[in-house]
């Protein structure tokens, strides 16, 4: 295990309606602890995960979305958000709770190709 592996966690699902966003975030945090080259990608409805000011008290669930802001503390610095997905949802980076790198679909596709492992849920 001398060399680091490039591991991407792809997020394409909205938060709250299903648990995938929450449990994928847990996976991202654990993966970061293994000192690998970790990337998070948000596209399609996955971009909703990063919207700021999500308040889950009215639905009485755990507000896991606050943890996205802690990603840099886990040394996860590559956080890609797809431009086309944002645009289709009327969102801009200013709507997000986290500093991200916005990539167009073609560039994101290139980054996916460069991975050793791609997790999705």
């Amino acid at each position, binding site marked *: 295990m001398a060399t680091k592996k490039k591991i991407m966690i792809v997020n394409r699902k909205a938060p*709250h*309606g*299903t*648990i995938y966003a929450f449990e994928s975030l847990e996976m991202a945090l654990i993966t970061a602890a293994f000192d690998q080259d970790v990337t998070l990608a948000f596209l399609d409805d996955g971009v909703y995960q990063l919207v700021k000011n999500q308040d889950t008290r009215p*639905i*009485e*669930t*755990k507000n896991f979305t606050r943890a996205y802001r802690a990603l840099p503390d886990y040394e996860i610095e590559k956080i890609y958000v797809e431009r086309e997905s944002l645009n289709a949802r009327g969102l801009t980076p200013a709507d997000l709770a986290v500093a991200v790198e916005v990539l167009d679909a073609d560039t994101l596709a290139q980054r996916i190709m460069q991975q050793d492992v791609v997790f999705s849920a």
Partner: protein
Amino acid sequence: MKFTVLVNEGPYTHQASDTAFHFTKAALEKGHHVLRVFFYHDGVLNATALSVPPRDDRDVVKRWSTLAQQYQLDLVACIAAAERRGILDSEDAKRHGLEMDNLAPRFRISGLGQLVEAAIQADRVVVFGD
């Protein structure tokens, strides 16, 4: 008014069980009568006695049991759906030669006919699922 509620998804994975719970609670608090909450498909997983959620999250199973106790609510999981997914009451476990059962308090297991019967008697049927 008489309601029957159908829950098609299990706890945590889909919000369906949460929404069904909040709907049922609100209906009861408004004085409506909820004839039965029926759990079908993965909904039967709401009836597990072994769910141990993290302390900082809601306890979906316990919340149903507590509401049932408070309002004498009838919580029924479909037997066919429950058996294939590993939810058994003691009688069912015994019949299949298993030493354990895992049905949560205030839930009972019965046939799909219990859903149809409650739907026929209700003024409204509301479905929650994926």
